């Protein structure tokens, strides 16, 4: 087998890693802002905190154009079917950040009308604590999500399959 000399401006990598690198640096958020966390979400997008530094500045209000849902605020039982429909309308690959105490757990609103954490009904990748969280915390969540996408992302989205349909990982040789 012949050894090919590569020029200095050519890099060999896995396609999965390359695609994940592209995806993680151009997240398009869907702002599902229902309460005061939405104000912090807007501050995150504004010039002072500037989420554009992490490639996630293109907030779209159409779920068809988004791949990162940021649920900012409490979700009431009348709103949850809307949330689920928007999540289903988003195209794969897609991720979800649960921002703030209310979206993650219901927060102080332990009443009949407030859903006690959106992760009971839709998948969530990152939780941001706080009431409301500061923009820095949301930026940290985006950075952590980028690391997660880079670490597990595959071009066919195999990381999203149910555990029963995933191929077993090869056992490490001693």
């Amino acid at each position, binding site marked *: 087998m012949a050894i090919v000399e590569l020029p200095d401006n050519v890099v060999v990598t896995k396609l999965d890693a390359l695609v994940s690198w592209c995806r993680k640096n151009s997240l398009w958020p869907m702002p599902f802002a229902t309460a005061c966390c939405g104000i912090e979400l807007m501050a995150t997008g504004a010039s002072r905190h500037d989420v554009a530094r992490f490639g996630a500045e293109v907030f779209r209000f159409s779920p068809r154009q988004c791949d990162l849902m940021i649920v900012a605020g409490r979700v009431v039982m009348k709103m949850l079917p809307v949330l689920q429909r928007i999540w289903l309308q988003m195209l794969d690959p897609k991720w979800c950040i649960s921002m703030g105490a209310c979206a993650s757990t219901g927060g102080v609103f332990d009443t*009949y009308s407030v859903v006690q954490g959106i992760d009971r009904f839709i998948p969530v990748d990152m939780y941001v604590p706080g009431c409301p969280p500061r923009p820095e915390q949301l930026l940290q969540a985006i950075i952590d999500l980028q690391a997660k996408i880079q670490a597990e992302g595959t071009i066919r989205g195999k990381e999203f*399959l149910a555990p029963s349909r995933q191929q077993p990982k090869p056992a490490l040789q001693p």
Partner: protein
Amino acid sequence: MISAAKLDRLKAAFPAISHSEFRLQVRVVVPVEQVHQLLRFAKEQLGFDMLADVTCVDYLHYRGARDRYGLVYVLTNTQTNERLIVRTFVNDPEPTVPTVVDLWEAANWLEREVWDLFGIRFAGHPDLRRIVLPPEFTAHPLRKDYPLQGRGERHNFPVITRSEG
């Protein structure tokens, strides 16, 4: 507050009412059989042309209360800036009061809200549907015997997993 002359006219027309005053707010309590007549009198004779609010209080387990539900009508006279609060009491089963949509159009949604949250029926209402809660909701959650955390309504949704969605 309402002028003394108008209050005297109201008491002359409806001897069955009782009235009290608190911080310049006059409140009259009227039997439920006369509430529609009294509200019509207040609108047409005393000039209370605006219905500011219709709401309800549940007096279950309230100390000294004899009746379960207290309906509250807040009236405003936009010419003289007078206010009048009209109250009436109803009881289980089937607590019912006559509607006042024929007097003030504003009562339509206000009465729907009271029906939604307290389960008070408004006889003669043109469109008595729920207004705040989803239509499949079965309870009236501001009643005092309804548990704060509900009866499972907030958990009754399909679960979307990662591989499905």
